[in-house]
Structure formats: structure tokens, C-alpha cells
């Protein structure tokens, strides 16, 4: 590598060719402020439009200030990051951005977590000298995501997430000049657009322009209603991230405190989505084996690879973008919906509660789960299997609103029977986890042998597309894994072209899987946070006495008492679903 030397704020620094001034400055201990800039290491996400101009610096010999995020170091360059000219420019541009931003900080969802707010504070803005007209747009309150375009600062992070990373293509810049904003085409509602509600736009939005639909009050209303029995399920990825909202180091498992908090908030039963994840493995694993066997017997009507279907963002994606391939994903519902279906049948019957008086709340790392819960096919006579879905962030909010000292909470256990899970259910929260869980069960069901080693390290990792071949006692099973919808698209296009060699593929819409979901605490661009959550998930798995779904005694009991066998008629009725081709629908209002 070619090395070059340059001077930044009178400090000589040596960097590799191709390094930006922003990166080089970091090496000298100078954090040049950024706003639109965001790079997620080890993912396809790179947003460097050079648009906010917060990172401008003075480069000797250049007429204008240079954006350090887009300026490559040159040998002998002389850079100043903190001259009066630079400081005045940054402050003035920040004042400009604020002059076209609502002053709602006190009541804004993003307050305290807002990149714009914190940068304005860092710059010490106390007065906005340039006031004038503010832009107004049509807002949007869709089931998963709320858009408040007045708060959009045109950083384009969401656009990068939606187009470059997820290849969904819903969000893009509209109009021009002062009126420009990022929105779906024609400013249509996200509901009517190609949006998958994966929430990655929300995960990277620096302001409150894109936020989740807040369902916390709906939950409180249910809890406060004496006629209702309110139960809650928590997704695996939540426990690995919730602590961050209370100042814990990323990757701290707070399962026990979370259960305790939920109980104190007033839920009647605190259950675990991991239980339903085990159930999913029973159904999906059995389905995979059925398909595989038929395929091996030469049945041409059976399509392989089979794709996982637990990620609702992913389901929305293929329904919209690959409507010709609806027969490829597993028909198994997602753990959230399996939980809802079992809770409102098996559990309700067992407890003798009318399903209409049973309120199922889910705590998810996800915004698409809100959309999924509201799908009409997941309701009986208008009563949804999952009534309300909230995110990890909303749960943290509820805990704070309930005046609970999270730190002081004692660890507590989930309730039975829907709270017991295997380690296989836990790893659903990470990319590669669902398929690893499925392999643990499918291997034993297929071969009749006991697995010596349950850890399949070859399936774990963070690369966007991974593959591995697992030896099913002489039968090589090719497995593909993709996280991020852009990566999913790559695999799907291979399948469409008839070039896929895989038997099974796991797909997660978000980077890292659910641990990087759109409803998780904000990572502010720090991918190491996601990786720490991932480690925590595998750690919880390793600590579980039972690590295979089919060994979960409560699952075995459920089949014995209620469902019969995996993929039985009753299972199909409750635990499987159909997919619908979504047409591109453009409505211009």
C-alpha cells in the first residue's frame, strides 16, 4: 500500500492512499463533526453524499472548504479542521439546517437520541440568526413507520438503506431546492408503496423524521382494563439489546431484568417468543425434510431451496418483488404469529379465557412485526392473534414511564408453559441462527442420530451472504444465508435463473438479523454494537440446558396435548400461512 503524509491541525500523520481526511483526522485524535455521513462497517451501507457540509475543513490551496468525508488525503496536504472560517461555516450551516427544522425537541420521539440535536449542542448553537419559511410536507402514519418529513434534513441515509442496501426502492429524494425531501414516490403513504417495513431507514435516520409507530399507550390501555388478560412475548434479540437503553454495555444480556420489568409493568403472563421459535423449527424443519425427501425421490413438483419465512420484512419483500416465487418460502408462520395463534387457542382454552379478552402483546426488535400483526390473515373474526406489537425501544420507554429502576431489578423467570425455550429458539435473533436451529433438529429427525456437537460455527458470522454444506450423515445439505434484503435479492435472482445450488436458505431483512432490527436501540453507526449483541445471543444459547427445539418438553407437550404432530392438519390450520403477490399500486392524491 502506498503511504502518504499530510498535516492535520499541525500534526503530521501518515496514512494509506485512499484514506479520507475525516478518517485521517481520527488518527490524530480529531473527531471532525459529521451529520449525513454514515458508514456501517462490514455491511453494504455507505452513505457519503457530502450534503450536510458539517465536516468541512480548510485545505491549503483550495478555494472552497472541503468536505472531509469525501476528500481523499494527498501527499503534503495541509489541513485545518478548526479555523475561525471553518467554525463559522459549520455554525452557520447548522443554523440554516435548524432554521428549517421544527422546534419540537421537547416532545420529539428522537429527543436525546437525535444526531442533529447532539451536534447542535456540540457546536454550541444558542441562537438561530437565519430564520425564515419552514418547509411543510404531507406526513404519513403507516402501521409500522411514521414519517415526519418536516424533520428530514436530506442526509439521505434512509435512501441509501432503502435503495443501496435493501434494494427496496421506496424512499428517494423528491422535488428540488428548498422543497426537497426524501419520501416515497408521489409522497404516497408507505402502506401503498413497495415498503417492506424493515425499518432500516428508521435505524439510520439521524432525526425524528422516520420513527416507529408508538404502540405503548395501546398496551397500557389493555393492562389498565380489568376485563383483559394481557400476556406478552419477547423476541430473542430484545434481551441482547434492551440494556443499552439503560446504559449497559452493548451485548449485556438482561433477560431476567426484562422479565421482571414486564411483570412490574402489569402483564399477567410474561412469555417468550423463543418458545414459538422452537415451535417454528418443528414445523419448518419438518417441512424442509418433507420437501427434501420428495425431492430426493425425484418429485419434480417440489421446489428447493426452501426459504425461511420468520422475518416479516423479508416476507413483504418477496411478496412485492418476487411474486412469481411465492411457493419457495416455507409456509410456516413467524414465531410471533405462531405464538399468537397458540396463545389464542391452546393457552386460552387451557386457561378458559375467551380469546377476545386475551390481549397478546409482542416485544420485537422489529417494525415489520407491527405490520405483520395487522395482516388480516392473522386474525380470527377480526380478532388479531397478536394484538399489539412494540419495539425494544418502546419497551424501554414503558419501563422508564413505569418509574422502574432497571438497574435494581432482580432477575426473574418467564412464565410456563409458553415461556420455556431451547437455545435453538434463542439464536433466531442472529443471522444464521434460524437455519442452525433447524439443522440441529432436522439432522436428528433425518438421521435418527444424536448430534455430537450442536454448535455449527460454519453457519455463524456477519458476512452478507454465507454458505456452508452440512453433512446429514452422508447426505450433503447445501445451506445459504443472507441478511440484508439486497443480499437476499442476489440469492433470489440466482434461484430465479435456476442457478441456485442450495437446499435451504435463511433470510433476514436486517443487518446481522434481528439483533440489527429497525426497532432496536440506535447504534448510531457503530456496527460493533450489533456484533456484541450477536455474541450475547450465542452466549445465551450456550448457557441453556436444552439446545434443540425438539427437546423442549413444553413443545413436546404441546404436540402431545394439542397439535398432534408437526405439519399435522391442526398445525397447518394454526401455524402455517399463504403468501400474496402484491401489485404495484400507485395512487396519486
Amino acid at each position, binding site marked *: 500500500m502506498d503511504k502518504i503524509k499530510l498535516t492535520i491541525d499541525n500534526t503530521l500523520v501518515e496514512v494509506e492512499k485512499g484514506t479520507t481526511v475525516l478518517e485521517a483526522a481520527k488518527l490524530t485524535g480529531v473527531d471532525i463533526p459529521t451529520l449525513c455521513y454514515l458508514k456501517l462497517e462490514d455491511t453494504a451501507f455507505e452513505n457519503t453524499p457530502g*450534503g450536510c457540509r458539517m465536516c468541512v475543513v480548510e485545505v491549503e490551496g483550495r478555494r472552497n472548504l472541503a468536505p472531509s468525508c*469525501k476528500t481523499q488525503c494527498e501527499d503534503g496536504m495541509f489541513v485545518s479542521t478548526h479555523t475561525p472560517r471553518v467554525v463559522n461555516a459549520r455554525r452557520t450551516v447548522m443554523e440554516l439546517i435548524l432554521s428549517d427544522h421544527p422546534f419540537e425537541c421537547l416532545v420529539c420521539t428522537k429527543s436525546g437520541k437525535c444526531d442533529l440535536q447532539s451536534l447542535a449542542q456540540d457546536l454550541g448553537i444558542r441562537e438561530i440568526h*437565519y430564520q*425564515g419559511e419552514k418547509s411543510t410536507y404531507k406526513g404519513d402514519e403507516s402501521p409500522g413507520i411514521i414519517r415526519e418529513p418536516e424533520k428530514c434534513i436530506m442526509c439521505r441515509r434512509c435512501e441509501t438503506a432503502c435503495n443501496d442496501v435493501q434494494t427496496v426502492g421506496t424512499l428517494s429524494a423528491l422535488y428540488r*431546492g428548498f422543497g426537497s425531501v426524501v419520501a416515497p414516490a408521489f409522497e404516497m403513504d408507505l402502506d401503498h408503496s413497495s415498503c417492506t417495513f424493515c425499518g432500516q431507514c428508521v435505524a439510520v435516520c439521524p432525526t425524528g423524521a422516520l420513527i416507529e409507530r408508538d404502540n405503548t399507550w395501546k398496551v397500557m390501555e389493555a393492562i389498565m382494563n380489568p376485563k383483559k388478560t394481557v400476556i406478552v412475548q419477547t423476541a430473542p434479540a430484545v434481551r441482547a439489546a434492551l440494556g443499552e437503553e439503560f446504559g449497559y454495555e452493548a451485548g449485556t444480556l438482561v433477560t431476567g431484568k426484562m422479565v421482571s420489568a414486564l411483570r412490574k409493568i402489569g402483564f399477567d403472563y410474561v412469555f417468550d417468543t423463543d418458545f414459538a421459535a422452537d415451535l417454528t423449527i418443528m414445523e419448518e424443519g419438518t417441512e424442509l425434510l418433507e420437501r427434501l425427501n420428495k425431492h430426493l425421490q425425484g418429485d419434480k413438483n417440489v421446489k428447493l431451496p426452501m426459504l425461511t419465512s420468520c422475518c416479516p420484512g423479508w416476507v413483504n419483500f418477496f411478496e412485492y418483488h418476487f411474486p412469481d416465487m411465492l411457493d419457495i418460502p416455507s409456509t410456516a408462520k413467524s414465531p410471533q404469529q405462531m405464538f399468537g395463534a397458540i396463545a389464542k387457542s391452546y393457552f386460552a382454552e387451557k386457561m378458559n379465557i375467551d380469546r377476545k379478552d386475551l390481549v397478546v402483546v409482542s416485544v420485537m426488535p422489529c417494525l415489520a412485526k407491527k405490520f405483520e400483526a395487522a395482516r388480516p390473515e392473522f386474525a380470527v373474526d377480526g380478532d388479531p392473534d397478536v394484538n399489539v406489537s412494540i419495539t425494544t425501544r418502546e419497551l424501554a420507554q414503558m419501563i422508564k414511564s413505569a418509574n422502574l429502576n432497571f438497574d435494581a431489578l432482580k432477575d426473574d423467570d418467564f412464565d410456563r408453559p409458553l415461556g420455556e425455550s431451547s437455545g435453538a429458539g434463542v439464536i433466531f435473533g442472529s443471522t444464521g441462527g434460524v437455519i442452525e436451529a433447524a439443522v440441529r433438529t432436522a439432522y436428528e429427525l433425518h438421521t435418527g442420530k444424536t448430534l455430537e456437537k450442536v454448535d455449527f460455527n460454519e453457519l455463524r458470522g456477519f458476512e452478507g451472504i454465507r454458505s456452508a454444506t452440512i453433512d446429514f450423515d452422508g447426505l450433503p445439505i447445501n445451506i445459504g444465508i443472507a441478511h440484508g434484503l439486497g443480499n437476499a435479492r442476489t440469492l433470489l435472482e440466482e434461484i430465479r435463473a435456476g442457478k441456485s445450488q442450495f437446499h435451504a436458505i435463511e433470510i433476514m431483512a436486517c443487518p446481522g438479523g434481528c439483533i440489527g432490527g429497525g426497532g432496536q436501540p440506535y447504534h448510531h453507526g457503530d456496527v460493533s454494537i450489533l456484533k456484541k449483541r450477536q455474541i450475547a445471543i450465542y452466549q445465551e444459547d450456550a448457557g441453556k440446558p436444552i439446545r434443540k427445539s425438539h427437546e423442549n418438553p413444553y413443545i413436546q407437550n404441546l404436540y402431545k396435548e394439542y397439535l398432534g404432530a408437526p405439519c399435522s392438519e391442526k398445525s397447518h390450520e394454526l401455524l402455517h400461512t399463504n403468501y400474496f403477490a402484491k401489485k404495484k399500486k400507485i395512487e396519486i392524491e
Partner: protein
Amino acid sequence: MAKDKIQVLVCSGTGCRASKSDEIVKNISQAVIENDIDKDVQVIRTGCFGFCEKGPIVKMVPDNTFYVQVSPDDAEELVAEHLVKGRKVERLLYENPETKERISDSKHMDFYKKQIRIALRNCGFINPENIEEYIAKDGYMALGKVLTELTPEKTIGLLIKSGLRGRGGGGFPTGLKWELTRKVKAEQKYVVCNADEGDPGAFMDRSILEGDPHSVLEAMAINGYCTGADRGLIYIRAEYPLAIERLKIAINQAREYGLLGENIMGTGFNFDIEIRYGAGAFVCGEETALIHSMEGLRGEPGVKPPFPSEKGYKEKPTNVNNVETYANIPPIILKGADWFASIGTEKSKGTKVFALAGKVNNVGLIEVPMGITLREVIFDIGGGIKDGKKFKAVQTGGPSGGCLTEKHLDIPIDYDNLIAAGSMMGSGGMIVMDESDCMVSMAKFYLDFTVEESCGKCAPCRIGNKRLYELLDKITEGKGTEEDLFKLRNLANVVKDTSLCGLGQTSPNPVLSTMDNFPEEYEAHVKDSKCHAGQCTALMQYIIKEDACTGCTLCVRVCPVDAISGERKMAHFINQDICIKCGACMEKCKFDAIYIA
């Protein structure tokens, strides 16, 4: 081939067509037939002659008679008198405004005397829809010469030596730009013609494309040969339908003649050209935005580097040049670098086409040698200020440029001098202002334009220009404070210093240059609430002189808002709270009893 005895050239540029030049062609052709001289007379539609002030233009050849402001009704007389009887129609000849003498040959008109036409050499001369006329004027000979006699390196060397600089505004040396693209190794390269002319009042590129499209096609092919590209793209705004149509015709004709396509002139060189349409965004004149737009993306600039010469259209090396730059290239190849370099100043060679507009007597399209002074352009070519008013300022470089004043009139026009004077060459807009133009309003006018045309990508341009506009608006409304002037200057400097592309980096120029050159006007607006030019209506008051008012009540009757009251035959009064300053009363008053204060 039967030789034409007489040719009638009728301007068929957009401007003259708007003044019914098509009908003139029709009527002349018909009269020619009726007079039975159609065997001897050919009527030809040409591109723009430049003297738009006096359009539509009809020129008779071979006696070189230049008829101005011709209407379709004049056709019959022109044919019967000039063509049949050989007598000039005096009343349609140009009249020298000073001597009142009728001038029949355009080269004796002040408007043309100081012009040198290189880029416009064929405009108003050939029929742009006929490739044969272009070929007859040595068309495609430069391409032939380059392909058979010169290497790409030598051709680029010749361009460098000629000193040709980009005519789109930046003034980057054209040869050097080509060399940058040539040096990059790639399997596919592109050359692009930037025809996204968008400054208010500018029509240089449009006129060239309408009047001489082949010169651009030929130069693009030369560019392709030199840089190693076999595909050319012309990015043109869809609002230029006539230019688009003529380009299409020209491309098809060039293909038919084998001058575009495979194995051109048997040399093994392949080159073809496609047209891409822009939706008319000013920012798409910026080359990275232009490339994005051609790729079907939002027309937004990217941060340079990488420059298009490395990563351009579809990530491939791309050379972008402006229409006028291209039009200069064939003559340079044929006549030599020394010939071109002999015209102009030390650092700016050749000529520049300007769209002369505003308060001058002769509005039009002119091509003048670099180094000519503003005074010569405005007073000799432009014929001075309209209605005998006093010259105040001239805006060069359109919304990106600045205003120049009396004290700049004698500096030789070239890229560097204009920048040193606080303005820029730009693509060639030149708008002249007189004493009745308010400089604050002028700056506001340009900001209005840039606010509209900003793409919105970077914060300083998106919001800063809007705030600049609002401050200027506040000042013209008489609500500005001295602090606002301070804010205005700081904001203008920051927008200039921090914007992502040339649009925002130059949009504050009209503000800064008017603040520098006319500080007293800004101060008068904020300190005394006065607009001395009388343009800011909010700062004006229409007042009735008591002693001059006869009480005729005419003003009362025309006032649309009933702001005037008074008894018959007594002096009247204007209620300033109601008055909307439309000026109708002053216009109607027969006794000059109403004045503006």
C-alpha cells in the same frame, strides 16, 4: 446542376420563428412562384443571425442585402421589388440610429463591425437541415484531417496550443480535459455534449445547435477519436424542441453519409451519437449532475474528485464539453492553433459568444474576440442604453456571475479579468442594467432563480439561498436592518464557501458583487427606506402635487383600489395605506401632477 441566381436566407431560429419567420418563408416562396422566378431563386431557412433585436431577418444573396423586422406581409413586396426588379426595399433596411442612414450590408452595421464569428460561423449562413451545405463549408474536413493525418496526441497538442478553454463557464483548458480522459485506460469511454443551457436570458448553445448542428457532431467525433470513445451523448433540455429536431436531422444525415457510424471515412474509427433529454434543471449543466441525469438518476451533482474523466457516465471515463466549445474545434483543426491563438488575450484565446440582453438598444447574439471591452460590447455593438438612459451595471455569467459597473467598462473581457473583477465569464449571458434598475432587486431576482434551481442536496445551497432570498426580500420591502446587511454578507460567504457544486458556490455572487459595488443602495434601503432606482414598490410613494393637480378626477377613476380622494376641481390626495403602487394614476395624469417619492 442549375445554379441559383439568387438565394433568400430567412432566419429560422427560435426567436425569429416566434415572429412568424416560417410564414415569411411560405409567403416569399409563394410570391417567387407567382412571379415565375422560382427557377432562379432559392429560399433557404438558416440559423440565427444574432441581431434578434431586429428580427425576423431576411438576407438577399448575392448582393448581401440585410432586411430587418420583416413581416409576412412584406414578402410580396420584397419579391416584386428586390427579386424581380432589383430594387431594394428601403423601408426594411436597417437604419443607423444616429445618422438615420439606411444600411443594406450587415457588415457596415455597428452591431456586426466588431464581431468575429468562429463558433457562429455557419449560423445564418447555411441551411442547418442540409448536411450538404455544411460539407460545402468544409464540414467534416477537420474530422477527416484528424483521422487521416493526426494522432490523438497530436490533435490534443494542437488544442492545447490553441489555448481553447471551456465555453460553458469554467474555462478549463479543453485540450487538457481531453488529455485527462485519453490517459485513463478503459474499454468503454464516452464523450458528452452539454447542451443544458439554463441561465436566464442565455441562448448561445441553442442558437448554435439550431444554426449549425453538424459542427457540434463533427467536434464530438473528433473528441471521441482523441479520447478513445466510440459513443457520444448529447444532453439537451427538452425545452429546446427546434434544436432537438435539427440535431436529429443532422445525426441521421451524418449517418447516411457515413460520417457517423462504423469505419468513418475508411479509417476504422467508429463513432455514433445519441440524444438524451433533460427536464430543464439548471443544476444539470454541472457535469456530474448531468451524468446522473443521463443515467436516469436524480439530477444531483456528486463530489469531485473523482472527475468524469475517471468515472463518468455508467462509471466509465467521460469527457463533457459544452456546445460552444465543440463548435470552435473544427476551425481550429483546419486553420491551425496559431490562427486561433492569434485572436484574444494572453490567457483567453479566440472568441466568446454572448447573449446580449437587458437595457441595450441592440439585443442579440454576438460573437466577439476575447479582450474586447465591455464598453465596446455595450455601446458599440449593443448600441448603448435604451431610451437614452444612463448605464448602471452589467451582469455577466448569469446567476453565477456578478455585476460590473462603470469602472469595469474598459477592462478587456476574458476569463481571468472577469473573475478578478468579481464576476465570471459563465456561459455567456450578459444583461445590461440602467439607472432605473435597483441592484438589490436584481440580486433578489437571481436568488429567486437559484432558490428554484438548487437541487437540494447540500444544506447551504438548499437552505442558505432561500434565506439569502428572504433577507433580500425583507430589504426590498423596506423592513431590513443594518444587522441584516451583516448577516447577508456572512451568509453569502458561507454559502459560497461550503456548497457542494458550482451552483451554490457561485449563487451568492450577485449578492456579494452588488453589495461591493453598490453599498450605498443597500444602505439607502435599510437606513432611509429609499430605493433610488424607484423599483422597490414597497419603498415608493405616489404623491399628488397640490399646486399642479387640477382636480380633473381622472386619477380617481383609474385607481383600482379607490385610494385617491378629493373634491372635483380641488387638489386630490392618495391614501398611502390603500395605494398598491400600480402607477396607473401617474400614467393617466395629464398635468404631471403625480410623482414618485
